[in-house]
Each structure stands twice: as C-alpha cells, then as structure tokens.
C-alpha cells in the first residue's frame, strides 16, 4: 500500500513535473475560456486552421533566433489575413478557403523543417513537449496566455453579444469589425500559448472540447465558462500526471482526458445528455398516451 502511494506521488517530486503541471493547467484554463466563444461562434475549423498555419512561423523564428511565440503569432495572423483576403475576392466558400490556406502553410512549414537543421524537433512542435519545457519557453507561454486571458476577460460581454447577435451589437453602436478582429487575434495568441503543451496538431481540441462539454451541462453562459475551465484544468492535471507513467505524449493524454469528459457529459448530462433526453421523450410519450 505504501509502495503504491510512493509510486503515485513520485512524479510530484520532480521539478520538471511540477512545472509541466503548472503550465498545462494555465494553458488548459485559457483555452477553456476561449473555447466557450469559439464553439458558440462555430469557429472550430478556424481554430484548427490557425494552429496548423503557425508552423512556418515557428521554424522561421528558430532560424532567426527569435522567440517562437513571435514567429507563431505572426504566422497565425498572416493565415487569417490570407483567408479573409481570398474569401472576399472569390466565390469559393469560407470553409474551403480555410482548408486551402492552412494546409498550404502547414505543408510549407513541413518542407522548411526538412530542409533546415535537425535541431528543430519536428515531433515537439507537432505534438508538444511540456515535460521538457525550458525556462525561456515557459515564460513565453505564460506571457502569451496571460495576455489572451486578460483580453478575453476585458472584452467578455461585448464578445458574447457579438457572437450571439452581431446585428444588435452593431445597432447599439458597438464596433463589430473590431470585435471580429479581436476574437481572431485572441485565438491566435491562445494557440501560440498552447503550442508547447499540446503541439500544433492537437491545439484545436483544447479550443473546442471544454466548451462543447460545458455547453452540454448548462444553459447559462457564465456557468458554461466555469465548467469549461474546470474540465480544462482537470484534464491538464490528469493528462500530464498520467503521461509521467506512460512516458511521454503529454498533449495526447490531456486531449484524451478531455474527450473522456466530453463523452461522459454526452451520455450523462442532466438535461442535454443522451439518457436525460431519452427519459424526457419517454415521459412525453406516456403523457400523450394517457391524456
């Protein structure tokens, strides 16, 4: 029994583990807050696009010896501008344009990696490496995440109104063009902050799954935010902890935990879960048969 406890507590004895737990839960919280807006706005694909499109920026930043967040952020903004530019000047549908642009930039990034020094660890960029995060990368992550979080919290109510009813937002004098751009910039910033933890490919899960899970659990936005943050942070802690025993793939462990929580909500959510809906339908049928 004691041996088991010692084994379970062992990860907490390492500095790198504590650091990883701290970073991943911060990232989990920031992504979860934003995920409420992204899922309600229907921007999942946009999140996926920006996260893939940051790759060439990360490689360039490495080559030019710049902080990776700078390259990633610039690359993300370029992808968003390219999507907007092409969409407004062609008849191609938005999701198609998004698909074309992000796969192009992602491929460019892959080619760049294969042509430059092998010091850039492809798998670390693609899948994250929070257990091996350096002091420098940690600070970059914290600053990007804190900036994104501050921006969301300040603009929270206007963003919510914009997502819910842009026509009304405009009618009462809000600058909807600014809010649209702000949401995109915050999205790019959040993605950048999550790169070290889960990597380019899985970032999108952090940006939608907590929001989707919380949406199944409540009909109020403020509660949705709270629940999303709770599931996001819990997943980050459990996933990081589990990855110690599984020896790596921390990002995947975090995302898998989020997915399990989503699955549980899908089945057992008190009002919108499968079981509750079935029960509700049965009751309605019976009531109709009776009366």
């Amino acid at each position, binding site marked *: 029994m004691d041996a088991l406890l010692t084994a379970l507590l062992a990860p907490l004895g390492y500095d790198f583990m504590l650091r990883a737990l701290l970073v991943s839960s911060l990232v989990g919280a920031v992504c979860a807050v934003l995920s409420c807006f992204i899922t*309600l706005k229907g921007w999942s694909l946009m999140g996926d696009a920006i996260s893939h499109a940051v790759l060439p920026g990360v490689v360039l930043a490495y080559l030019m010896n710049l902080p990776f967040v700078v390259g990633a952020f610039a690359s993300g903004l370029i992808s968003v501008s390219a999507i907007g530019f092409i969409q407004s000047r062609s008849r191609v549908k938005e999701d198609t344009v998004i698909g074309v642009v992000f796969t192009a930039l992602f491929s460019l990034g892959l080619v760049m990696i294969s042509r430059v020094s092998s010091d850039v660890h492809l798998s670390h960029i693609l899948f994250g490496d929070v257990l091996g995060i350096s002091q420098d990368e940690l600070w970059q992550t914290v600053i990007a995440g804190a900036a994104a979080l501050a921006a969301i919290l*300040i603009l*929270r*109510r*206007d963003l919510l*109104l914009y997502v*819910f*009813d842009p*026509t*009304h937002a*405009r*009618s*009462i*004098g*809000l600058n909807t063009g600014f809010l649209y751009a702000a949401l995109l910039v915050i999205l790019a910033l959040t993605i950048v902050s999550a790169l070290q933890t889960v990597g380019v490919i899985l970032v999108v899960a952090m940006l939608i799954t907590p929001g989707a899970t919380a*949406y199944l659990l*409540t*009909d*109020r*936005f403020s*509660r*949705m935010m709270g629940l999303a943050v709770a599931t996001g942070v819990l997943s980050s802690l459990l996933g990081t902890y589990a990855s110690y025993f599984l020896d790596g793939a921390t990002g995947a462990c975090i995302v898998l935990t989020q997915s399990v929580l989503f699955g549980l909500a899908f089945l057992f959510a008190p009002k919108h879960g499968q079981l509750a809906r079935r029960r509700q339908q049965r009751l309605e049928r019976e009531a109709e048969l009776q009366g």
Partner: protein
Amino acid sequence: MSAPALDVQGVSVAYGGGRLALRNATLTLQPGRICGLVGMNGAGKSTLFKTIMGFLPPLRGQVQVFGQPVRQAQKAGMIAYVPQTEDVDWDFPVSVRDVVTMGRQGRMGLLRRPSAADREAVQAALARVTMTDFAERQIGELSGGQRKRAFLARALAQDARLLLLDEPFGGVDVGTSEDITGLLRDLARGGRSVLVSTHDLGALETFCDDVALIEGRTVLTAGPTAQTLTAENLALTFGGRSPLHHPARTPARPTEVR
C-alpha cells in the same frame, strides 16, 4: 425647428448583383410620432429598415437621425432596431433576462457590468411586455410570441429615442398584437418616434399618426394617416389586389376577370 427623428433623403441602394433594392426613397419622421410602413411583400420594407441602420450602404442619398449621421446616432444609443425575424441561435446559453440586458450594453462602462439602473430598466422592460415570469428561461424554451416579446423588451430596455420595428405583428396572436399597439402608443406619448412596418391595414388608423406606402422599391407617398390612406393610394400600393380593403372608404374595384 428641431431636427426630424428620421430623415431619409433620396436614398438608393443595390444588392450585390447590381439590382436596385431601393430607388430614390424619401421619408421623414417627426419626433413623438408613429409612422406605419405599408406595402406588399418584396416591395422594399425590410430593405428600407436595413438601409436606415446602415447595413446596406446607400449608392445615393443620405439618412440622418436627429440631425446626425446614423453611425453616430447608433453609438449614442439613439436607435433601437427589432428585425422581422431574429437571426440568432435559439440554443444559445442565455436567458431572457440576459438578452434584455443586452439592450443596455451600449451605455455600460468599460467592463460592461450592469448597474443598478440597468437592472431596473431591464426589470421594467420585462414587466411592460409581461415577460417577468419567463425572465430566467433559456430563450429557446419560449413560444414564438414570447420570443417576440423578449426582443421587444430588449428594444425597450435600450431606451432609444427612435424605434424601428420590422413586422412586430407577424405571427403573434391577437392579444400580443393589441399589447404591442398599446406599447407603441405609450412610447409615442413619451416622446419616442416609431417606424413600424405591418400588413394589418385595418389597425393602421388606430395607432399610426403617419403612414408611408411602399411600392416598387420606393416610398410611393407618406403623410398623416387620414390623408394618405385613401382607396386610390392603396390601390396603387397593392396594384388593385389589396387583401384588406379599407372599411371606412370605398374599396378598390375588383379587377376584371380576363
């Protein structure tokens, strides 16, 4: 003389394809008056609303609200707009109270936290449309008429000087319809100006000070209800196919059978 509540001068707008959606439309609304906007489906009523709100940029002409450009008036919270159908996600996690509170958002501070005055205004607006009991419902749980009331309450909470209501009577029961008419009269008595589009010709005289007739993507004629709502004008507006003839006057002659 003070500036009119709404001044639309010779406005033309086009949709993307280049087809004119509104042609040289002119309309003036004085403060404290209710103007009924009448015309067939597709005549350009909703387009006129969207143009006034600046959602469709005019090719020619200009729109002013209390002597100011529309965008400026919007920023000052002067215009409340209730579209014909609310283009929102009804599963959105907001309550009726949340939605009505959004009417006040333009005037809240940096962080948009509702003040005590905001909460009171929301409460009063909910009471005015008899939706107090439904305040905590998620918006998707409302019936069609209740949804209309909720969004009307949002416009009331905004406390705007000019209200633009596109077909508020569409798809609501007689009781709600009468409630809305009474509400509009109260607003006008309080000095508010209202532009309201409707199909219900019969009720126009009971609550509209002015009437504007829309046909062929322009304002055919506008003026005080009694002078404007003539059989002749109605025949022009509805092309002799008026679904509801005017009870007080000679109905337009039925068209010949060909």
